[in-house]
């Protein structure tokens, strides 16, 4: 063995240096951090499922009755149906309001607005708006819509509060989706003799739509789980009627909130069942968003 070879061997040796130890420690910390999140989610799911189990087998809650009976003060007659219908109505109205306001604003800001100081200030503040606590939107709607316009604590007011809450999120994600459409495509359309409106309608919006839809679905999922703004506009309402847009109402999160605050243990167990239903809805929406993104995403090969 020559001197050179032996030197090489020492260089290539798998040593246990100080840096190696630090590297491994860092890896361990990162793994532990990721497992913390997963463990918490597992714990939550376990708790919810265990509570649902006790609701069904300990308190004899019939799942079919649970999903078909309306809200009630009587624990034996209480069910989740009116809350589910309330949440579905909210979802429909919120998506209509928030989609048009959000996407309209995004298209204006990204495609039409001049790139000046005011536009940039406006866009920067959208992010701040998205960070405003949800209860503030509830108070705003309580003051301006419920009492100010005098429509009362009806479902429509709750929908307005939730729509206001998620409009900034939809605007920001729609702007991102519009920016992802390369300028060369807009120029190609203009050069083909299209007006600005034709370019936006025929080329830009279709290309950005998968991104816009994904952002909108995720924002809706957030709205549907919100409790505080609904409590503010008076959704802690127990009625045996299923609500329409102009009725007083309860929704899934507020019903869960009400039940969890009751003294009867059966109500608390039913709250767990309600959370399970809400989680299933939320996970389905997240899954739908992922599907839309994967299935319809446009690759421009830039």
């Amino acid at each position, binding site marked *: 063995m020559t001197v050179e070879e032996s030197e090489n061997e020492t260089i290539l040796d798998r040593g246990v240096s100080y840096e190696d130890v630090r590297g491994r420690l860092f890896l361990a910390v990162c793994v532990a951090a990721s497992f913390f999140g997963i463990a918490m989610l597992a714990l939550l799911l376990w708790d919810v499922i265990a509570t649902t189990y006790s609701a069904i087998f300990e308190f004899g809650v019939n799942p079919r009755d649970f999903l078909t009976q309306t809200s009630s003060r009587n624990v034996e007659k209480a069910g989740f149906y009116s809350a589910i219908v309330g949440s579905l109505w909210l979802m429909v109205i919120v998506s209509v309001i928030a989609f048009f306001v959000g996407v309209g604003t995004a298209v204006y800001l990204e495609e039409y607005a001049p790139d000046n100081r005011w536009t940039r200030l406006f866009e920067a503040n959208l992010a701040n708006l998205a960070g405003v606590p949800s209860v503030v939107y509830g108070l705003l709607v309580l003051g301006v819509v419920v009492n100010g316009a005098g429509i009362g604590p009806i479902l429509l007011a709750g929908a307005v509060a939730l729509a206001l809450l998620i409009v900034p999120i939809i605007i920001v994600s729609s702007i991102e989706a519009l920016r992802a459409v390369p300028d060369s495509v807009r120029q*190609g*359309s203009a*050069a*083909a*003799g299209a007006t600005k409106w034709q370019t936006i309608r*025929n080329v830009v919006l279709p290309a950005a739509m998968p991104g816009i839809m994904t952002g909108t679905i995720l924002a809706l999922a957030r709205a549907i789980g919100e409790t505080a703004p609904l409590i503010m506009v008076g959704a802690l309402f127990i009625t045996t009627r299923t609500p329409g847009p102009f009725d007083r109402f309860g929704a899934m999160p507020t019903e869960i909130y009400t039940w969890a605050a009751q003294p009867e243990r059966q109500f608390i167990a039913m709250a767990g069942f309600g959370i399970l239903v809400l989680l299933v809805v939320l996970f389905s929406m997240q899954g739908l968003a992922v599907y839309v993104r994967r299935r319809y995403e446009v690759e*421009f090969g830039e």
Partner: protein
Amino acid sequence: MSETDENGSEELITTEVQPKNKSARKDVTGTVVDVEELDVWYGDEKALDDVTMGIDENRVTALIGPSGCGKSTFLRCINRMNDQIEVCRVEGGVRFKGKNVYDDDVDPVALRRRIGMVFQKPNPFPKSIRDNVAYGLRVQGRADYTDIEARCEEALREAALWDEVSDQLGSSGLDLSGGQQQRLCIARAIAPDPEVVLMDEPTSALDPVAESKIEDLIDKLAESYTVVIVTHNMQQAARISDKTAVFLTGGELVEYDDTQKIFENPDDDRVEDYITGKFG
């Protein structure tokens, strides 16, 4: 510069360049675009300096010059694509069939409906091949093409792409190769039968085989259209163009003449230096 050097470089050009036959071209009937004393600024920076030139109908006119010499800017003045750049300011005249396109009563959209454009990077829309080609006809609401499908086939044949895509017209234009995408963009530009086709370095993003196909195609297009092409590639200009305009730094049009004259015996020394690779 010695005598032999000069001969050597001249030979280099003439041997490498194999001009297209350019025989099928119609007679020049006059100019279709006349540029008069055109100045263009981007903010305070002057991009074009007092450019005057006429572009012959049914001919291929090449614009060459080093990067930043204003040749693309010139091209984009013809169909007013520069309008989309906020800081861009244009003075002087660009006459399309006698009408100054910068007059107040000219609608740039209407102008672009008569002047097609192909860009440096292929930019097909995320739509089917059929919808890409039909795009111009559809947005222009053209009543003269009742059979859009038939016109699309015609345009794809003119763009030498039909044989490769005739069985997949419904698939996305983005699934094609780079060279095919560029020919699709050419088909899209010529489908509404424009009078002028502007090309901004249409082959610079393509491999040599695709480039050669596009050059053949441009040669053919000149039978029916007026083509103005910006190119970095001097051999390309020599091969496909009838007339060549040489821009040099500062946005100055240094020489504009028959391509053969420009490449074999230019008047201006700077042009000769540029063409022989001593400058730019």
